[in-house]
């Protein structure tokens, strides 16, 4: 019997608590050995830049999944935002047009929430429908043509401030705000409560409807910001802009440990999930792998990451379980 402290478990516990990070390191070392250039700082910057738009949208998705909802319309939302910006707001200065299109993204989310909270239509169906309607509207505006953007938007996509690319700034700001909101405000904690049990939340005096509305608006706003980051990179929005983006976004969120059933997870994990996927894609290009192998390798690595994470949680739960009796030595 081990006496007080249980020191043997300490290291195991530490290792277990940090397995995602360890896995990440293994991955980086692996790719690094195959392609030395992979390990450069510039390349890491690149990875984060490329992960930024998915990551930002996934942060918004995290809020929605935390309340046990889902938003399939984020990709359509991105496209609407891109089409409106490129077709109607070209001539406005960015300081006006960007807030305007983000507001459009938020209203898109608000429409979703209206159907979900007022008419009690399941989120899956509402956002599935608005996915179609949104894409249809945007296609109608653009007439199926590629939408181009003003040089100021594009140079923003290539710009750096204090040596950090604009996409990373956007990613970082969205992350910090979201993290503070979720962990340090009443609203954030209520999001978790609503996700765990909406009925109990109402009884506890939480304005459940307000939380739901806010969460979908946040997801809409994040989709718009993510859309802006993406379009400033890819420079045009073709008719497939944002098409099926909901899958990688939800994948990044769930990979980051957020439960689809609500109440569990957080944005730190989401950022990790988004960056992890991009790291693998980047590593594959860096090592000049056969394109046919990309999906195989990426899915295998995601699989291993989740496998490690779930077995770790099981072990952790066992180790951290409270004990009734204090064992005597």
């Amino acid at each position, binding site marked *: 019997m081990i006496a007080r402290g249980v020191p043997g478990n300490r290291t195991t516990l530490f290792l277990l608590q940090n397995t995602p990070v360890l896995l990440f390191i293994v991955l980086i070392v692996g790719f690094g050995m195959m392609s030395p250039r992979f390990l450069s700082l510039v390349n890491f910057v690149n990875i984060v830049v490329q992960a930024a738009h998915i990551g930002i949208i996934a942060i918004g998705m995290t809020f929605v999944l935390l309340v046990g909802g889902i938003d399939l319309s984020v990709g359509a939302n991105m496209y609407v935002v891109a089409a409106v910006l490129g077709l109607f707001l070209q001539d406005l200065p960015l300081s006006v047009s960007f807030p305007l299109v983000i507001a459009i993204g938020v209203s898109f989310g608000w429409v979703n929430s209206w159907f979900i909270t007022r008419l009690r239509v399941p989120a899956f169906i509402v956002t599935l429908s608005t996915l179609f309607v949104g894409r249809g509207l945007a296609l109608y505006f653009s007439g199926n043509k590629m939408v181009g953007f003003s040089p100021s938007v594009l140079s923003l996509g290539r710009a750096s401030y204090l040596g950090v690319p604009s996409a990373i700034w956007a990613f970082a700001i969205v992350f910090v705000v979201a993290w503070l909101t979720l962990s340090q405000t009443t609203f954030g904690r209520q999001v978790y409560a609503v996700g765990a049990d909406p009925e109990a939340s109402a009884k506890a005096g939480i304005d459940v409807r307000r939380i739901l509305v806010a969460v979908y608006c946040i997801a809409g706003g994040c989709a718009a910001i993510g859309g802006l980051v993406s379009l400033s990179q890819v420079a045009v929005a073709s008719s*497939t802009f944002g098409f099926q983006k909901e899958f990688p976004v939800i994948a990044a969120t769930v990979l980051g440990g957020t439960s689809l059933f609500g109440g569990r997870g957080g944005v730190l994990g989401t950022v990790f999930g988004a960056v992890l996927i991009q790291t693998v894609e980047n590593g594959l*290009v860096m090592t000049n792998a056969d*394109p046919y192998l990309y999906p195989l390798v990426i899915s295998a690595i995601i699989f291993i990451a989740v496998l490690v994470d779930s077995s770790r949680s099981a072990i952790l739960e066992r180790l951290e379980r409270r004990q009734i009796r204090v064992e005597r030595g």
Partner: protein
Amino acid sequence: EGTKTVALLFDSLVSPFWVSGIEIMRQKAKAKGWTTLENISNFDDNKQFEQVKAMISRKVDGILIIQTDAKAVIPAIRAANEANIPMVHFNRPPAKSDAYSVAIQADNRKIMQDTVSFLVDEAKKQGGKYKAVILIGDLGDVNAIQRRDGFFDVVNKNKDIIDVVGRVATEWNADKAFAGLTNAIQANPDVNFLVTSSDFLHPQIEQVLKSADKWHKRGEPGHVLFGGFDGDEGAYARLQDGYLDACGVQNLFLEVDMAFGAFEDLWAGKKPDKLLLDPGFVITQASLADKREDMWGYTVWKKMQKAG
């Protein structure tokens, strides 16, 4: 004999090539007094089959189809044969079968070979060694595969000066192209030879090359030898500005005329060949002025200039 109704079944409208294609078709059909019905299948073979059946039940006079898969379209052809409705494949021929239909296709492999040959000749002229990257399209798309093969046909013969360091699988997807090319250039900062399987990826290429400080005109130091394919308005503009060296152009006007001609032949009871090839052409900065009238991107570009 009344007005004709023709169905236009596209699998997607992802690139300006298809968008221009459908617009040219609408115009030319209108000019002939035909009605058009449109369906987009979003790369879903089965859905496209259903669309063919829907058009058959609407009793259209002809079906123009752009299928995703060459073999999966065969039952659709047979269904059209059975209903006695002429079927024309635009830009992608079906696999061999006993079913009868007419296909119009650009000679992708040949056009790509010519384009890349031009670039290789340029390279030889300039001297030195080259690190090349190719943006490949969707691995399930015949055209993408033919263009890739055309590229390697030429490059493999010139291994001494050209080393292919990156094959970016874009899946015809702009952000995959952006990320893939960024990474490829990251891995090989000295890339100086670039070919894309479609011109619609130019904006992403421009963004990436600008970030890497590689976007320079022909003749300027640091210029990347750059070849395109399709011949859209962006390609025209970049040729004119001097960034693009060569572009393999599909003659879209000719292809639409060929397709509609095939319908008329079929209605008249004639039986055209199963495959009609558009030879296409390579356009370079030198031949720009002569050949641009045949380049569909130029007309689009002109219209855009007019609109402001």
